């Protein structure tokens, strides 16, 4: 099984480890509940170094990305990090990813750990038929970068302190002061880059720091020394669900396209890109629901409306912040838009769930 450079650090913290897409990762340190609440109230740090970093460069890189991604990247403010989908011809999703423009001819795609190899192979395959392929280079640099996510409203100070501690000469404290939400900054570091974005997967303010691997342990230690709570993948999943953020393989997949998942705002339609056919199908829709009693919805539980099964839960959990069950469900598009409740079969009994807006919690 693969492990990140922080494997020993996690063991020293007595983390409960779990196999996640072939990676031995921390599920939790002290508990999913208190880790989730630490991020909601103060700040927590996640080792997400397993995620993939695919670099696309060259004079025709931007045009190529416009063609393979759901968003027209060349139109976007280069300081922003953009969420986008990599799709098949029919609109089925290969992966969801974040796009960083590092210069007009250099882009980083941050992809799901489970999909890195698949994405890389797929991008190469599409590139092979791309007319300007000689002007594009695609490289998997996942082995070069570690990734730490510091999340929560009190993120800035510990991130400043830790980065100043590891890189005293880079003037990062004032640069971080100026970095706005959803924007990124980067600077050369030896043969690679230090990339910092004010983004995350929790709904909270926070920072994601892409750092050459040899610095990962000292950055992690410095962040913990600032009193930031280490958090595992269990809390990460609870946090992303509370924030109404989808997970690849659950709410979007090869079978569920972005429009069906209600994510049309991350698709620039009416142009030629791989996957533009997604607007032609509408086989299901994703809804958000919350419990009216103490029932906790879980993945694959059946969803009913007026006595008929109309779908199933794609992600479900107890929400530590709301103290109740919340979920995404994949249902028939025929479920009326004004429907207020559905029923979920929870251990042979049916429980009422309210259809709700996302995010599930108020920020």
């Amino acid at each position, binding site marked *: 099984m693969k492990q990140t450079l922080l494997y020993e650090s996690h063991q020293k913290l007595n983390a409960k480890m779990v196999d996640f897409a072939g990676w031995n990762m921390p599920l939790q340190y002290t508990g999913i509940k208190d880790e989730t609440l630490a991020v909601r109230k103060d700040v927590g740090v996640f080792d997400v170094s397993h995620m993939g970093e695919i670099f696309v460069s060259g004079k025709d890189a931007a045009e190529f990305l416009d063609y393979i991604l759901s968003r027209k990247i060349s139109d976007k403010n280069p300081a922003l990090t953009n969420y986008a989908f990599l799709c098949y011809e029919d609109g089925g999703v290969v992966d969801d990813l974040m796009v960083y423009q590092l210069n007009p001819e250099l882009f980083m795609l941050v992809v799901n750990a489970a999909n890195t190899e698949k994405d890389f192979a797929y991008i190469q395959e599409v590139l092979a038929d791309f007319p300007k392929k000689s002007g594009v280079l695609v490289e998997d640099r996942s082995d070069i970068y570690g990734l730490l996510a510091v999340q929560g409203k009190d993120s800035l100070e510990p991130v400043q302190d830790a980065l100043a501690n590891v890189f005293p000469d880079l003037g990062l404290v004032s640069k971080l002061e100026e970095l706005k939400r959803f924007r990124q900054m980067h600077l050369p570091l030896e043969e690679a880059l230090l990339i910092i974005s004010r983004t995350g997967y929790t709904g909270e303010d926070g920072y994601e720091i892409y750092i050459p691997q040899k610095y990962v342990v000292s950055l992690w230690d410095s962040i913990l020394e600032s009193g930031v709570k280490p958090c595992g993948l269990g809390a990460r999943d609870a946090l992303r669900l509370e924030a109404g953020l989808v997970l690849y393989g659950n709410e979007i997949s090869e079978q569920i396209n972005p429009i069906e998942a209600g994510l049309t705002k991350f698709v620039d339609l009416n142009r030629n890109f791989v996957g533009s056919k997604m607007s032609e199908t509408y086989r299901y829709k994703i809804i958000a629901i919350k419990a009216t009693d*103490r029932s906790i919805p879980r993945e694959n539980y059946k969803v009913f409306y007026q006595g008929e099964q109309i779908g199933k839960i794609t992600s479900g959990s107890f929400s530590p912040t709301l103290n109740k069950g919340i979920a995404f469900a994949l249902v028939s598009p025929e479920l009326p838009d004004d429907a207020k409740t559905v029923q979920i079969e929870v251990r042979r009994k049916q429980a009422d769930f309210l259809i709700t807006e996302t995010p599930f919690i108020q920020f």
Partner: protein
Amino acid sequence: MIEIKNDRYYAETHEWILFEDDIAYIGITDFAQSELGDIVYVESEEEGELFEQGEIFGSVESVKMASDLYMPIDGEILEFNEILADEPELINEDAYENWIIKVKVTNPDQQNDLLGVKEYQAVIDEE
């Protein structure tokens, strides 16, 4: 460290059972609570109902998963430990102190089917 107490018996499905004459208390083991993580809900079937060994008598849910509870022996549910309805996390704090149900034992011979400390240790060593 996972604790196993030597005053009681165990089932392969990670319940413990503590006998007091023809009454028994049933809960989940320290190993089970540790695997589940933060427990947020516990429920059992109605008091007065009869269950056979191996039947589902309730469930326990943590943030990340739901798990059924199995009767280690035949018995009638006399009482559900109501304090767990409001404070299910007590099981995380002390899995052996916080029993889930109290039962009337209807087939005492089944005690022979249950696991002792060493046998249960072997079960968790395999997992």
